């Protein structure tokens, strides 16, 4: 457990040592602020539903930049050998790295809690719906991070990792737009595959077992594939 936490701490502090992470943090929060202002100004509602949807859209573009180096950089500079020849299990390595980037993401989302405070000061929002929305955006971000980590474990090139991650996230995010071209079971499949419908439930204040299973199984599959990928290091 302490070895796992060492990796988590190292990963989290690595984010704060990198100017890229600060740029991402500041830029993202700045863009979230703009969306928040525009949406609140337009809707005049004590709700963050529109803000959460804008955040989701932003995460599709943001997460691959955050995750591209997780394993790709370790492979490129050879530090993966330090981890893989230390008495750590592959599961500890994958979970340590994942929890490290998830902690950074949680801090980033945590900064936006100020929106809830602002909305609560100027209106009478439904606290449960706000909490549910934040839970939704957090778990969706956690899923996106797992996808990004997985693609990062496939290559030693960070750009390739980011592009592959974009490709997968675009499919899961934008597939809802192509639903009209499908009928019957295919339509249901495309709808279920898309993150849009699942987050919609969360931001409306509805937390269903199906949505939790969707995100958590997505995270689990990505972590397992990442573990398999780092085990298969013949060509590293």
């Amino acid at each position, binding site marked *: 457990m302490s*070895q796992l936490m060492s990796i988590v701490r*190292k990963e989290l502090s690595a984010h704060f040592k990198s100017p890229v992470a600060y740029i991402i943090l500041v830029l993202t929060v700045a863009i979230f602020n703009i969306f928040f202002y525009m949406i609140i100004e337009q809707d005049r509602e004590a709700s963050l539903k529109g803000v959460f949807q804008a955040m989701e859209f932003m995460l599709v573009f943001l997460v691959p930049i955050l995750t591209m180096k997780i394993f790709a950089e370790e492979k490129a500079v*050879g*530090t993966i050998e330090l981890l893989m*020849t230390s008495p750590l299990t592959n599961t500890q390595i994958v979970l340590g790295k994942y929890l490290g980037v998830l902690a950074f993401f949680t801090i980033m989302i945590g900064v936006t809690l100020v929106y809830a405070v602002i909305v609560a000061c100027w209106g009478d929002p439904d606290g449960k719906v706000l909490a549910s929305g934040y839970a939704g955006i957090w778990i969706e971000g956690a899923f996106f991070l797992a996808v990004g980590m997985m693609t990062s474990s496939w290559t030693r090139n960070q750009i390739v990792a980011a592009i592959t991650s974009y490709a997968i996230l675009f499919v899961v995010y934008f597939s809802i737009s192509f639903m009209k071209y499908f009928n019957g079971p295919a339509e249901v499949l495309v709808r279920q595959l898309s993150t849009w419908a699942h987050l919609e439930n969360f931001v409306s204040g509805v937390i269903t077992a199906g949505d939790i299973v969707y995100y958590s199984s997505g995270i689990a599959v990505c972590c397992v594939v990442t573990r398999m990928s780092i085990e298969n*290091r013949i060509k590293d």
Partner: protein
Amino acid sequence: MIITRRVTKYFSDTPAVKDVSFEIRPGEIVGFLGQNGAGKTTLMRILTSYFPVSSGTALIAGLDVSKHSLLIRQKIGYLPETPPLYMDMTVKDYLRFAADIRGVSVRQRQVRLDRVLEECQISDVQGKVIGALSKGYKQRVGIAQAIIHEPQILILDEPTSGLDPIQILQVRTLIKGLRQERTVLLSTHILSEIEQIARRVLIIRAGRIIVDALLEDLLKTPGTAPSGGSTLEEVFIRAHQSPGGPL
């Protein structure tokens, strides 16, 4: 301490290491020689359980690398050819991290840290970011991470590669100091290094061990050295020129 029996490793259909068998006893310092691509790094990676074997058995301290990799990793200190350094970390933070992932207890960690900083002569740069250090210092930090958990076995893959003569001397002196009570397998292209550090030599060619002998015996074979024996360079060249292998 290290035993390999017919160890073979394939990458796709190509054998990188083929039927390698040798035994290194506790406290032995063994020099590992071979041309680039001969299989030195692959064999070292097998011994550190970074690569699985395709067939054969490798035992470290009596434990099979295929079955007890986590236990074995606690007993081994490994310096890969490119030191595995996080350039944005300070030397102290990096070594603390290396100690943590090797399972060194928090109570022991500071003692070990102070010891390796002193042993590797890097106390003066402990607060510096690794990326800002000279190559010689980086190499010493790499060695420090390999010994921070006080392993019984040290596997060093070309520890002086790419260093200037002064840095080579510093790293070589450091390795000489580490020999006590440790089994060391050291690969290098600098033959004089082997002569100064090792007592026994393994030479690998195209994935097969072609020489496994005491350095003293190898140097006694007839050659052009002033003593009438051979230089290690001659031994190495002869081993690579003769069709069947050595000497």
